[in-house]
């Protein structure tokens, strides 16, 4: 399945980077404002699905660089990795840990295991949906 519409091509090329940036933005602000790993992952997959409709599954695989199922596995690994600090500290699984890194100016970068976990969710959702869509499209070709 591949579209030959010029409008779709152009739109996909312009919108996709914006969508991806927005998805990362949603991911990082998720702890304080509406957003988070699920929503970010869904927005990102929306971007890639749009690209896939415009340029086909082969091109999407190229632009993803990693196989969707590896993305999926990476997501699960991230989520599990977020349990390691608690494990090392001998606390119950998934106890949150926080680190604040000072940034230039008067701000801090909040780093935490929930954030790592959320990144894992993001990658897992993106991986899952891309697995569905790319494989289904390839099955049709």
């Amino acid at each position, binding site marked *: 399945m591949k579209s030959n519409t010029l409008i779709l091509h152009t739109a996909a090329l312009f919108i996709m980077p914006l969508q991806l940036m927005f998805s990362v933005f949603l991911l990082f602000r998720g702890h*304080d*404002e*509406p957003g988070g790993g*699920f929503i970010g992952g*869904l927005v990102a997959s929306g971007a890639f699905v749009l690209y896939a409709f415009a340029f086909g599954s082969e091109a999407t695989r190229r632009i993803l660089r990693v196989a969707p199922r590896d993305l999926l596995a990476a997501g699960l690994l991230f989520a599990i990795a977020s349990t390691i600090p608690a494990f090392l500290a001998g606390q119950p699984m998934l106890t949150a840990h926080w680190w604040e890194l000072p940034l230039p100016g008067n701000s801090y970068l909040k780093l935490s295991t929930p954030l790592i976990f959320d990144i894992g969710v993001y990658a897992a*959702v993106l991986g*899952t949906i891309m697995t*569905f869509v790319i494989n*289904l499209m390839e099955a049709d070709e």
Partner: protein
Amino acid sequence: MESLMAYVVGILFAAAIYMMLRRSIVKLVIGLMILSNAANLLIFVVSGMTRGAPPLLPAGAEAPASAIADPLPQALILTAIVIAFGVLAFAVVLIRRAYEVVGTDDLDQMKDTDT
């Protein structure tokens, strides 16, 4: 509003179950989709519906200034939506596969294919 939504959810459930009882496998999938929407709404309605008070804290505040919507059912529903999508994708591909192998979308015809 909750009582009105109770009737809406009831109708959604009825539609979903009716569709799931049909013999066409595509209708089964559509029933499944209505059902997951109905279930999500059910949780949402039962936990109480609040207008204009999302479960977000104002910047710098430790606690909400006034009563806010219950965040717990929202978290439940959020996962339920995503899971329902996964299940739906799985079901849809399964059906497609079954159709390719069996050559029919009539569930009654499929009962003899397990041998």
